[in-house]
């Protein structure tokens, strides 16, 4: 084996090594990015769920009635005010079966 051939082999091995490290590095970066995207997806899902429920609260019959009263839209019977909630708290707490 000549010195030149030995150097060539050494060079090729270095190149292959560098390429492998590069590939490994890119693969790690990609995997890391996927992991970060997963984390982001979880955060976004949380936000979506939270917004969905916020929307559900706003779409709730009581919320709509309250807003209609606040905006004086004159489409809600007089009883449907915040007093409803107060009345709910005043009902007697004892409750039993319909048939004693």
């Amino acid at each position, binding site marked *: 084996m000549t010195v030149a051939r030995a150097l060539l082999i050494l060079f090729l091995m270095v190149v292959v090594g560098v390429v492998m490290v590069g590939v490994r590095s890119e693969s790690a970066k990609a995997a890391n990015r996927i992991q970060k995207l997963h984390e982001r997806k979880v955060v976004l899902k949380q936000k979506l769920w939270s917004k969905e429920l916020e929307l559900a609260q706003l779409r*709730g019959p009581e919320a709509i009635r309250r807003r209609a009263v606040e905006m004086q839209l004159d489409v809600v019977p007089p009883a449907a005010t915040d007093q409803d909630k107060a009345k709910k708290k005043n*009902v007697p707490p*004892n409750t039993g079966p319909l*048939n004693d």
Partner: protein
Amino acid sequence: MKNLAGQSVIATVLIVLVALMGRLVYINAHDGPRLIGLAERQQISEVPIIPRRGLIVDCRGRIIAGTTLRKSVFVDPGVLPDTQLAAKTLADILDVDPSEVGPDLLAAGEKRFFVIRRGITEEQSQRIAAANIYGLGVFSEPCRTYPMNDVGAALVGFVAPDGVGVSGLEYQCDKWLAGQNGVKTIVRDARRKAFWLADGGYRPARDGFHVVLTIDAEIQANVERELIETVSKYKAESAVAIVMHPQTGAILAMANAPGFDPNHYRDYGAAYYRNKSVTDPYEPGSTFKPFIASGALAEKAVRRGEVFDCERGSWTDGARTLRDHHPYDFLSFEEVLIKSSNIGMGKIGKRLGNEKLFEYCRTFGFGEKTGVDLIGEDAGILRPLARWNSFSTTSIPMGQELCVTPLQLARGYCAFANGGKIVKPYVLRAVMDAGGEVVSDFTPPLPEEPVISPEIIETMKDKILVEVVRQAASQHAKLPNYTVFGKTGTAQIAKKGGGGYVPNAYVSSFVGGAPAKNPQLVVLVAVRKPQKSIGYYGAVVAAPAAARILSHALAYLGVPPEPPAQEPIASSNDPNALPPLPLDAVPYD
């Protein structure tokens, strides 16, 4: 010499290399699996992916129960450097007294993971992270939320903190709502920070299916509001109401009062959690009379317009004396129902006899479960025929000696509204996956055959039950734009274990529907133990609430108004027959 020295160096290097390689081979062969395991334990961890619990939505897709994520604080007491300092810091962030947090930290004992406080704010979460106390951390956990608060609470139920349904539909539909856990395999760096996903290390969670109900949140909320008003006004113990679509059996509202807020279910007792419409039977009283009257017509035991001597309000039959709220001389068959004469019904019962009475109770589905898709349904109480006696002959026609659930009674009235068919009530409409595809459709098949002649049913509805609302004190249930049919009841409450009735304790009820020509809704309102001094007749207590519920629901559903029925009823030609009562008169029940 120089050459020899060089060869010695090379030989030494080679020996060292061979020794190293040998050591490597030894380690690989001998300790390899153990070391690989150790490395994997340090670098790779499997993290469960918690699925989102499915939504419970009403028939228009409005969310009644949903899941969000909340931040909670945990502690690992084993590594906590200074409990006092941690308690002080945490108390400062959570804005509470350190004495409130300290015992919690100490209570953690030997546990490695102990939740100190659930549902903290985002800002508090960031401050805890910034405090950087080893052993104290914040994590996210699913949190079941009921955005409409108490709407449909007894029906929907609630889940325990671990996310498992423990009451109502949350419990019943847990298999659909729960979903399946996923898992991700994470490679971590030296500081245990998630670095990347391992190859093939991601199995997504399957979110829970959504459950679609037949309930309409708007109607449900209004029904609950009316019940609360009624319970409050009459200082009653409790009330239930049901709104049903009589043609299909779909339940649009099913409510209890007082209700509870499932977001804070621990603040209420177990009695609040019960869905009384299906679990609590009661004696129906006069609301039961139309079923027996229909049976009497079907058996030709009575004729329309036939006159009954109502004995001026007191009639002794064997060992038993029946009384009417008002003394009547003669009433036509129709008037017996319109004026709710117990004596008239007793006489009709005697014509039918116990066997036929029992048969028609069963015909309308009493004494057996309705088959509604809700857990805990009671079958009511209809004693076996062998245990009936001569008292039963006159008691059953008045709605005594048997108990029905509100749902059984509402379903019975659906038969008056749909031409005599016994529908199967249902609340679960469908189950959908997270993408909105229907997984299961629970709409039950419609009944084909009526259990009793449609002509008799029409007669009962159009000629009698409409007149009950038009003429008698039940006109509290009258609506300006719709013809309402129905019947009131004021039933005494039987003592536990028998032996008579509880004094001054009643279940005041109204069951009916509208529009009479083509009924779209049947509504039942039953109010338990209203205060007698304020009012206790079904016509006074329950009928107005039922009317408001009907009025709201019919308008909301866009049911076109209809002119009121004009046809006069058959009369006994009795010159002493009572004229229609004014609204403030004593009602008949």
